[in-house]
């Protein structure tokens, strides 16, 4: 059994879309989970549908949303205070050392993050790379295992099959509850997947199809 799991993603909602089912599984086993959330998603373009946020109110709204989602997922939340869309321009070593300090304090047995260069959003790639570097900088005896999540359309042909494949459909209702805490984002993100279909009706059904399995590569140092 894991001792403590630390999830490192850049945006409020990455945890719910990407790893909620896995987080729920760990919490059901009694494993503590901490989410290190890189930014407040300040630059998100989804403003709710119908629109209820604007560029200036979005950060506080998303802070409330991630706080709610963390309650649903029963995990500890720490906000890292970077700014959305800028992570790739930060000094990689500085971010890695920041993360390393936190990891040395928490001493997790497992870290979940994005797979650098295979995670589509520049913030995902940059924070994933910093997280992997943070673990590399740790004393090898104390290094947690790292699960890296790839989300590009071609990741299986590029990287092979992920080693960890979690079918989380049994917990899908709670995953959906966590996703829906992100009220400003959920509908826009899900509808964005099927642009050709126009406005699709059942958000949950669409989400289940795409998000019913959470897969991770085990990082090799």
């Amino acid at each position, binding site marked *: 059994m894991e001792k403590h799991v630390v999830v490192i993603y850049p945006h409020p909602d990455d945890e719910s879309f990407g790893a909620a089912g896995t987080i729920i599984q760990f919490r059901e086993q009694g494993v503590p989970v901490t989410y290190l959330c890189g930014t407040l998603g300040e*630059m998100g*373009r*989804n*403003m*709710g*549908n*119908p*629109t209820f946020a*604007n*560029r*200036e*109110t979005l*950060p506080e709204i998303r802070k409330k949303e991630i706080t709610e989602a963390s309650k649903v997922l029963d995990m500890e939340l720490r906000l890292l205070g970077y*700014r959305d*869309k800028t992570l790739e321009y930060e000094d990689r070593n500085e971010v890695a050392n920041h993360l390393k300090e936190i990891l040395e304090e928490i001493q997790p047995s497992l870290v979940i993050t994005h797979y650098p260069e295979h995670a*589509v*959003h*520049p*913030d995902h790639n940059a924070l994933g790379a910093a997280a992997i570097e943070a673990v590399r900088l740790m004393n090898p005896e104390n290094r947690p295992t790292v699960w890296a999540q790839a989300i*590009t*359309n071609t990741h299986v042909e590029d990287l092979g099959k992920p080693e960890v494949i979690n079918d989380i459909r049994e917990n899908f209702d709670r995953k959906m509850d966590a996703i829906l805490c992100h009220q400003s984002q959920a509908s*826009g993100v899900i*509808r*964005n*997947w099927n*642009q050709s279909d126009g*406005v699709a009706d059942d958000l949950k059904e669409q989400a289940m199809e795409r998000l019913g399995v959470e897969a991770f590569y085990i990082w090799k140092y």
Partner: protein
Amino acid sequence: MKPIELDKVQEKLESFVGKDVYIHLETTNGAYASHVNEKAYNVGVYIRNANVRFNQAKIVGDGRSYRAGLKMDIGWIYAEGLTDWTIHEGEKLLMAGHDREGRLMVALQISETPFNY
């Protein structure tokens, strides 16, 4: 935000003329544009808290979509596709253009005090 009311926005724009103001200007089609549609391109630009002074300001449009242009001593700032506006914290003028799903496509914001960083 609410649909742009030309006269009110024009009046607010003019209140900034000749003052040192902070600008937020952006346009985006999202970080996932080419992920969900391989024929699309990811394009975006963003400048926050640029400190400028303009001597003319005008908003123009057809009742649905608007353009706003600010004339400075040695240059211009403009944004196209604006649909909505609001006053934030009593003094900041926020203008944005949203698509039919409510997603922000473009924003031009002007304030006498810096935007939160």
